[in-house]
């Protein structure tokens, strides 16, 4: 496997497996079918990233971040549009949408859901690739897409790899995205690792 494009396809597949696990989890949690899209992968400069993020508009989003270090450096994010986030929380907790505590409920609930989902994705990827990763504690934030941009640990002037997949919980009309940001240097490492691991598995 010499071609980078092939490696990227493999990576996409692995991420898809991770997300598939997430789908199982969410299915269990929500008792609802989850529709997944094929992940997209883009290599962007920080400027391009900004431009890309700007396309997402000014919609209010709920986001759970899981930064990680180790063999690769990056951030995994679970992102919901605010409305979907609310529906998601209602489905999980059974609380009424207009209760005063909804916001506090949402933060706690989504943190845990994000934790589960991102752990599943990252756990699958790191298991498949045999990576060693150290995770920070997940954090919950709200804001527009731009404000959710992981400034840290991404260093300016470096390129980032953005892997994005979109899922829809049809019954609840909930949608969301799982986005992985990798630093470029560590991404190359990831691809190397992927080759070794893939070849190894093939043997």
């Amino acid at each position: 496997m010499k071609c980078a494009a092939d490696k990227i396809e493999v990576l996409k597949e692995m991420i898809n497996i991770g997300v598939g696990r997430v789908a199982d989890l969410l299915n269990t949690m929500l008792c609802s079918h989850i529709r997944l899209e094929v992940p997209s992968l883009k290599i962007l400069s920080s400027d391009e990233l900004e431009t890309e993020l700007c396309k997402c508009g000014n919609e209010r989003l709920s986001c759970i971040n899981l930064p990680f270090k180790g063999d690769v450096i990056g951030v995994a994010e679970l992102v919901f549009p605010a409305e979907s986030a609310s529906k998601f929380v209602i489905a999980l907790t059974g609380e009424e949408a207009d209760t005063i505590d909804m916001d506090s409920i949402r933060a706690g609930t989504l943190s845990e859901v994000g934790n589960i989902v991102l752990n599943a994705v990252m756990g699958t990827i790191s298991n498949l690739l045999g990576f060693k990763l150290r995770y920070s504690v997940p954090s919950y934030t709200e804001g527009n897409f731009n404000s959710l941009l992981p400034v840290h640990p991404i260093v300016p002037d470096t390129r980032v790899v953005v892997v994005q997949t979109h899922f829809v919980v049809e019954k609840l009309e909930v949608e969301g995205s799982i986005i992985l940001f990798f630093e470029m240097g560590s991404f190359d490492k990831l691809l190397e690792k992927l080759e070794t691991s893939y070849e190894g598995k093939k043997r």
Partner: protein
Amino acid sequence: MLDHIPVGMWIINRDYTILSWNNCIEDWTGIGKNDILGGDFTSYFSLFKEARYRERIASVFDTGAPTIFSYQLHGNIFGLFLPNGEPRIQHTTVIAIPSPDGDDFHAVFAVEDVTDLTNRIAELHRTERQLRQAHSGMEKRVQERTAELAAANDLLQREIVEHKQTAQALQHERDKIQKYLDVAGVMLTVLDNQQRLRLINKRGCDVLECKEKDAIGKDWCDSFVPEQARDEVREVISALLNGKTKQFEYWENQILTKSGDQRIIAWHNKVLYDDKGGIEAILSSGEDITERKKAEKTAKLAYKELENANRELKEVQSQIVQSEKLAAIGLLASGVAHEINTPVGFVASNFQTLEGYIEKFKNLLEMYHDLIGKIEILGKTELLNKVAAIDKSRKDMKIDFILEDIGDLFDDSKEGLERVTNVVKNLKDFSRVGHPEEFEEYDLNTGIETTLAVAKNEIKYDANVKTELSEVPPVMCNSGQINQVFLNILVNAAQAIKSQEREGMGTITIKMYAADSEVICEISDDGPGIDPDKLPKVFDAFFTTKPAGKGTGLGLSVSYDIIANKHNGQLLAESTVGKGTKFTIKLPIEQTKTQDKEKMKHEESCLNSVDDEGAV
């Protein structure tokens, strides 16, 4: 170190054995370190006996990834209550730390009491939500207001554009109008109701010898009207502003130029009304007629001179006509004298005879008288003798013949006197000097007869006159002038025949007939005729074919003037050499009013054309 952290914390290994237990969790659970350390975690926290919790914990040990147990999904891991009995809100995070030997992970449980935090967050969110609502309300208001402002701005922009366009169009129109005004060859001015100049075109500035900017706003009368005319002009302008437009629609007055010249301007004035129908200004177009006035004056003088000359000419013409007439009469004088002499001769002779007759009557009457005186004295015989003597004398004196003759003598004399009277009357009629423009109804046949009577002696030795006179309607004419024409033509004809010195008599034929609206008289002779090259000249003044002293050369010229000019008729000449000449006179029956009028109009227009030009 963990003891100082205000978070309930404990550490377990993969076997769920509690390795560490801090003060805070000691306080919250009431379980002392010494009691719990080395014990089985699940025996204190039964929740973690459940598979789904164990799975989560297992993943911490397997992957080193942290796990969260939120209050919202799991409630409290252990009982912890507020003073009011409500459970405290716990947020549990499990993170992996490497085991001291580095081969495995230990799981660190950290339980935060986030009651206050959650409440504060909830409060914060509420506030935020309210703020957001207020903000969104405000934003909506701002958006609405912005939209309104934008719309107003759009409208304003449009209006500005429209205004600009209108202003441009107006300016364009104004420029165009100014161009038109400037192109105009007359002065154009607008005076406002304060009699100040509001608009003036280029021609106006040229005449006033000033610049537009210097003239605009000035009081018209004070600045541009000579002092002597100022009051009058001011009154005229006031009258116009008061609506007396008809009276002063056209007005001439003098104006004063910058260099002090005075020019005469003919103004045509119109008033301009405002929206309410009030008069707000006067628009005037003025033509500089100074030069024309001068020319007019010259023309008037020239016209007067011309008029005098014309009058003199007319007088001369009239004298010529008269003298021509007198010449004709002179020509006729010998004939007329003869005409008169003959009757006068035999009347005189009769008179002599009558004188003799009267003498005889006187003698006879004396004899009778003597007899009557002696009738008482004388005896019968004597009486008888006396009577016999008287009777004898009567026979001797041929009284019976005389009585018969005397009637004849009187008849003859009466006829002779009548003839004289007629001749004189004809002559008088013929030579009548009437007003040249005096027209009357006249029978042209009478005219011919009168003329023939007068001219009889001029004609009768040379030509026979044949007349074919149809009955014709009377013609409006000046009879004296028409007779003069007849005479001229007849005498010319007779003289032409006479000039041939032929043996026999010539013939003059006179035809009179009416055709349509004219009466036509043809006078033809069988004389020598006129050469074709001379024929066109016969009506020219002073042209004559007669030997010197025989004619004035004015006869036919005057005749032509009388027929063609004075009577709107025609006088035509046809001639064949060796065969004769024919003159045709055509006279309109009516000197119609139209013709009269046209004639008058023609004459007036000749006058007016000068007058008009003078007045323009």
